[in-house]
């Protein structure tokens, strides 16, 4: 089944090496100008993202991962109700939970976790392995955003 409006949020700090994978992916996808796809990038997820998420049918949270499978992992997100959070640690499940709790939105969510390797110093570059993973992730997501066949991942 085809989904309607899609929001892609790529997040992370481009000044902290592979932590910039999320924004790099967002930038690459934004150039492709897919129909009904809104692309956003930020240093981290924030609570007000819930309001934006609530206005879309599907949201994809793209971030670097320290331990996902290689080159990336694409998984559905189950909305989560939490007791506590900080703006550093707010996670996709929580944003989706807020979208439901605050705005009664039933947006479907997915994470695209791109495997990174180097995080612990300042620097505006991706490691070569992260760069390869980014290329694979952009290729995968581009195909998906053309078809918008997200249901294949809901199991």
């Amino acid at each position, binding site marked *: 089944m085809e989904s309607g409006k899609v929001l892609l949020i790529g997040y*992370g*700090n*481009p*000044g*902290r090496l*592979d*932590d910039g994978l999320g*924004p790099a992916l967002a930038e690459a996808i934004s150039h492709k100008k897919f129909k009904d796809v809104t692309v*956003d*990038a*930020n*240093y*981290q997820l*924030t*609570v*007000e993202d*819930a*309001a934006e998420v609530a206005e879309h049918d599907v949201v994809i949270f793209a*971030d*670097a*991962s*320290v*331990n*996902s499978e290689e080159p990336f992992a694409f998984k559905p997100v189950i909305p989560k*109700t*939490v*007791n*506590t*959070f*900080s*703006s*550093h*640690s707010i*996670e996709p499940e929580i944003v989706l939970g*807020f979208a439901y*709790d*605050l*705005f009664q939105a039933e947006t479907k969510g997915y*994470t695209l*976790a791109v495997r*990174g390797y180097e*995080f*612990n*110093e*300042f*620097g*505006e570059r991706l490691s070569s392995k992260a760069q390869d993973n980014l290329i694979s992730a952009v290729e995968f997501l581009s195909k998906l955003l053309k078809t918008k066949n997200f249901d294949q991942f809901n199991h």
Partner: protein
Amino acid sequence: MSENMKRIVIEPVTRVEGHGKVSILLDEQNKVKQARLHIVEFRGFEKFIQGRPYWEVPVLVQRLCGICPVSHHLAAAKAMDRIVGGENLTPTAEKMRRLCHYGQVLQSHVLHFFHLCSPDLLFGFDADPAIRNIIGVINKFPELAVQGVMMRKYGQEIIKATAGKKIHGTGAIPGGVNKNLSIEERDSLLKDLDQMMEWGKGAVKVAKDYTMENFDMVAPFGTFDSNHMSLIREDGAMDLYDGKLRAIDPEGNKIFDHVDVQKYTDYLLEEVKDWSYMKFPFIKSIGPEKGWYRVGPLSRINTCDFIDTPEAEKERKEFMALTDGKPNQITLAYHWTRMIEALHAIEKINELLHDSDLQGTDLVVTGKRREETVAMLEAPRGTLIHHYRVNKDDQVEMANLIVSTTNNNTAMNASVTKVAEDHLSGVEITEGLLNHIEVAIRAYDPCLSCATHAMGQMPLIISLFDHEGKLIDKKTKE
């Protein structure tokens, strides 16, 4: 560590920005000797920025911290104004930057108040943790939870209209800004303003009512006498974007006043301690023992003579009347003052959006080139200091940043010590003690980490050490 002390470590602290670690040092009688808040501060930034051209700095510094990129962006731009001799900005440039800053203050303050600390205020921090949380707020006060999100979104929209993109914002450049505010952007922001004002007043009332209704508990909680410091305008008004330095003692006497920020090293020094990466600033004339100070909303309300917007000024007067005009030292009053400032920010946004200078086209000025520069602004969490030296080839040679949380470093340690003294029983980390320490730290709204946040990180670890430093208990919260 001395042999007759025990150490309890709590790490990291939840519901503050980033994460930290708390050690409580006990003596042989299991009384609190000292409590220490260890902060994982950014390191390596100076190396990162060295050799980069000065005009890149306002963009680069945003990478320091995903929590307050706008404050760093504006502080660095103010510094680089002086490098290019363009510190006397055009009215359009200065007002665009101010609008951006008030948007940042608003969104930062409301996030902290509505979503990080409101569970403590609305339910009381002795309430059952199963209720005292953000979901509890959503369930019992859904309108407040939505207000928090929508006010924060409004602040972010102002930032987007003035600074550009959320990442790599380029609104402020050396000597000015790179855009004005279009009529469409202005009108879009104006349409929600009345609602923001109403919610802003409501938020002050929530914070005020909480403080007054729980005064006997709130007043001594993590509270102590301290000096306070902030920027102030020439006429003594609160000014969050620019001004000169004023410091007052616990009685309200001025320690220094109208100090040119370029001369801050004549008045402030930083002490290094072997147990913390973060430095401990103090007022030079008083010394490290008694010269430390607080910054942020509580300090700004204490140091200023007045606020130049009517609604916030009315609230400031009511707040200061509590202590007969003397400095208010109540640590939990940070929340009340934070909401007075949020209201002030909304009033200033209103003022600016009705100012046609924002549609001006004279955006940049330059003048006589300099090689060294200091800039300060009042970031949401307190005074932020950027100090740079740039060589003749336009490359940054030296950068020294004193962030707001560093300015509050000793004060936060003092609050944690006070709470530990009052609430530690035995050598066990109880849920109650953990909550109380977190509530005290959270009052300062510290930004404890400029670290990465990639998936798979951020556990909560609680460690307990005996008097020989041996780990005897460890708890982890995911």
